[in-house]
């Protein structure tokens, strides 16, 4: 399959800060590609450069065979964008927002009407097409933004944290639309998220941290790298337990708060063996199949969760839920 996005050592500095340190990757046509990482990892900076909103300090990339450095308008015409922050005009109706978008992307009025109907039906907002956006809920606004991103038949749809600040039910809805539009529109989807469970929906994931891609693979392959199931135990003496796990079972356990974590093949059959042969005293034990959280943890040595609800994030979430209003 041919690549629709090729990124070659893309770098961006902000003063002394290296936000993105030479990332390279390829995305195939029709792929659902996820950028996963904590806030400040360089996700949004990378996506801004690919969307030509930000000039790279060095490196290059092509989208739909157009260069982001010197064919900006061609790149812009090839992509649909759903920004992290809302960008609808809430004094216009749903249809008028789509019409505005279609026209500034070079469509004529006749094709705007037909296409608006299609994309509004896709996100199930057709019945509300003539209502002002300021009456919409946070989830509806997101859906409308996705519809708007699709208006001009883009080859690639970029979504920056598409489910940020939405409740779990609405998040699931958004995902069902994303899966549906892949089938109906045959489009390549590039999204960023810091929700691990959502990243599982992607065909491939790039894990990014401190401006570098530290892993890039399918979710299944990433989890396979961990070498089995994740076991967490609590013992009365964790330090000697680490030694015993190493010597008797050949396992590298890591202390994590008051727990010890290690990965082992066929965890469910290993636990009875551990109970039988372990000489120390185990007070608690859990076994689970690896998640992307575990992957991130083993790659970076820290959990993504602890960083995912900082103040800025909550503020953004609130702004989105209640909808930013213009004062009169």
């Amino acid at each position, binding site marked *: 399959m041919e690549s629709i996005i090729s990124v070659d050592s893309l770098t961006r500095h902000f003063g002394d800060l290296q936000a993105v340190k030479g990332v390279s990757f390829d995305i195939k046509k029709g792929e659902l590609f996820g950028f996963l990482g904590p806030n400040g990892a360089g996700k949004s900076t990378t996506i801004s450069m690919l*969307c*030509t*909103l930000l000039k790279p300090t060095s490196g290059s990339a092509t989208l739909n065979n157009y260069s982001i450095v010197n064919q*900006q*308008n*061609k790149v*812009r*015409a090839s992509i649909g*964008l759903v*920004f992290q*922050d*809302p*960008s*609808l*005009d809430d*004094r*216009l109706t749903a249809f*008028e927002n789509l*019409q*505005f*978008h279609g*026209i*500034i*992307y*070079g469509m*004529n*009025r006749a094709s705007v009407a037909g296409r608006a109907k299609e994309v509004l039906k896709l996100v199930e907002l057709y019945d509300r097409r003539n209502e002002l956006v300021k009456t919409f809920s946070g989830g509806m606004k997101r859906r409308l933004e996705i519809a*708007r991103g699709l208006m001009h038949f883009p080859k690639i749809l970029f979504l920056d944290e598409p489910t940020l600040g939405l409740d779990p039910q609405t998040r699931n809805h958004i995902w069902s639309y994303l899966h549906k539009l892949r089938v109906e529109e045959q489009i390549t989807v590039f999204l960023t998220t810091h929700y691990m469970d959502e990243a599982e929906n992607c065909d491939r994931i790039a894990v990014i941290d401190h401006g570098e891609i530290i892993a890039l693979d399918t979710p299944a392959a990433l989890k396979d790298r961990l070498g089995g199931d994740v076991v967490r135990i609590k013992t009365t003496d964790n330090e000697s337990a680490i030694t015993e796990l190493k010597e008797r079972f050949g396992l590298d356990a890591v202390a994590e708060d008051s727990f010890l974590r290690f990965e082992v093949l066929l965890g469910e059959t290993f636990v009875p063996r551990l109970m039988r042969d372990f000489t120390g005293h185990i007070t608690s034990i859990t076994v689970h199949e690896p998640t992307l959280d575990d992957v991130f943890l083993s790659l970076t040595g820290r959990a993504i969760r602890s960083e995912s609800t900082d103040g800025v994030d909550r503020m953004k979430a609130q702004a989105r839920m209640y909808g*930013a209003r*213009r004062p*009169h």
Partner: protein
Amino acid sequence: MRNLRVVWIIWLREVKRYLREKIRIITSLTMPALYLFVLGKGLGSSMAMRGAPPGFDFRQFLFPGILGMTVLMTAIFAAISIVWDREFGFLKEVMVAPVPRWTITLGKGLGGSTVAMMQGVIMLLLAPTIGINLTPAIVAQVVPLLFLVAFSITSMGIVVAARMKTMEGFQMIMNFFLMPMLFLSGAIFSLKNAPGWMSFLSKFDPLTYGVDALRGIMLPEMQPLHSISFNVVVVAFFSTVMIGLAVFAFNRQD
């Protein structure tokens, strides 16, 4: 053709937003109405204009100035709405579109001017209440002139708004642009007997020529400073320079 469609849709958005805010239309008419009926009546009866013909009504003198003031305020607000668009994210949607930037500037300029002209027309309808006859000839000259004046001021506003990142600068705009432009334009008092420094400064205020032309059309007996055609040429020249600067300022955005 494609670019003109972009200009049209940006213009249409401005006009739709204006027409949907009926309450704002009414409330922003209260200030000029206060000037006209309260300030105009009060000042008029407490002073007698030097050399004024018998039966002179200060409110009639004031009226073209009030039209200019209405257009000035609406046009500046329309231009400054770019800053709202930036704060609320909508500007991003426009800026990433694969269109030349001048289409955005021009659409915004024409949209703001249309809105300001409409607001001026609503004020114009009050003319008969102070004894100014609205003949078809007067209306046919005043309405396009209101548009032209609005266009020059909206364009100037865009030059300023292109640089503003937040609405915090708005008070500054009021103090440094709006009020001086209004006072120096001869909208509220005649510039004929104004001190030298004031009449010097007023020469750089586009509203001076706009108000003078309006006065020339509506009240020819009041002896305007310049001929109507001279005023129109100056305002048109100012508009051209300002829209050029606006396009330049907007192109430099990243």
